[in-house]
């Protein structure tokens, strides 16, 4: 997993297994969280988001869990596929009077093994 501000570089999983990527965020005022996927040579791509009034949100093959008590976020990918190999970033966002800003973690490299 990763922490916003700390670096845990790699996670390897077998194709077909479930992946769990963790993230510890730092700002207790953050009320919005996003997971991004970044493939080599591309910009980050939105995967899923969650607001602080929820503790779980599901998308297609992905689930985000939020534990505000311990300021922890996780991304679960079901039936991991080779195309899921990428760097995954969590980002947190506190309320803002102007543009909402995102603070990104340093990322986790997910490698899917055949």
């Amino acid at each position: 997993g990763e922490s916003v501000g700390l670096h845990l570089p790699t996670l390897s999983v077998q194709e077909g297994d479930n992946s769990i990527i963790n993230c510890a965020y730092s700002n207790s005022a953050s009320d919005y969280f996003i997971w991004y996927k970044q493939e080599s040579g591309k910009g980050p791509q939105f995967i899923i988001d969650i607001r602080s009034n929820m503790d779980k949100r599901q998308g297609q093959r992905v689930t985000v869990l939020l534990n505000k008590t311990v300021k922890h976020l996780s991304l679960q990918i079901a039936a991991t596929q080779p195309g899921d190999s990428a760097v995954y970033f969590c980002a947190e966002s506190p309320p803002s009077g102007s543009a909402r800003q995102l603070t990104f973690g340093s990322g986790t490299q997910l490698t899917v093994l055949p």
Partner: protein
Amino acid sequence: DVKVTQSSRYLVKRTGEKVFLECVQDMDHENMFWYRQDPGLGLRLIYFSYDVKMKEKGDIPEGYSVSREKKERFSLILESASTNQTSMYLCASSSRSQGKAEQYFGPGTRLTVT
């Protein structure tokens, strides 16, 4: 689909040169952002803009300036490029009206300063 484009994918400049990085978005977003991405450090916010001609400093504005003369275009300027500005530069945009912080990213510009 939201599209964010950046003027160059790769750029090589000499120390002391003035460098312009251009970003254009086609979704009428109010907010635009410039980040740099370095290994192990994640994405760090340089500057952002929440409206035409409005700009705010991010976490690492030193050595950079920005310009937003039109809503769809946000330029990052390196007044006098230095080797420590060698990095991947990512532009992003987001909508204020959505009430979300989701940012859409361009493909990035890899800048090398020699």
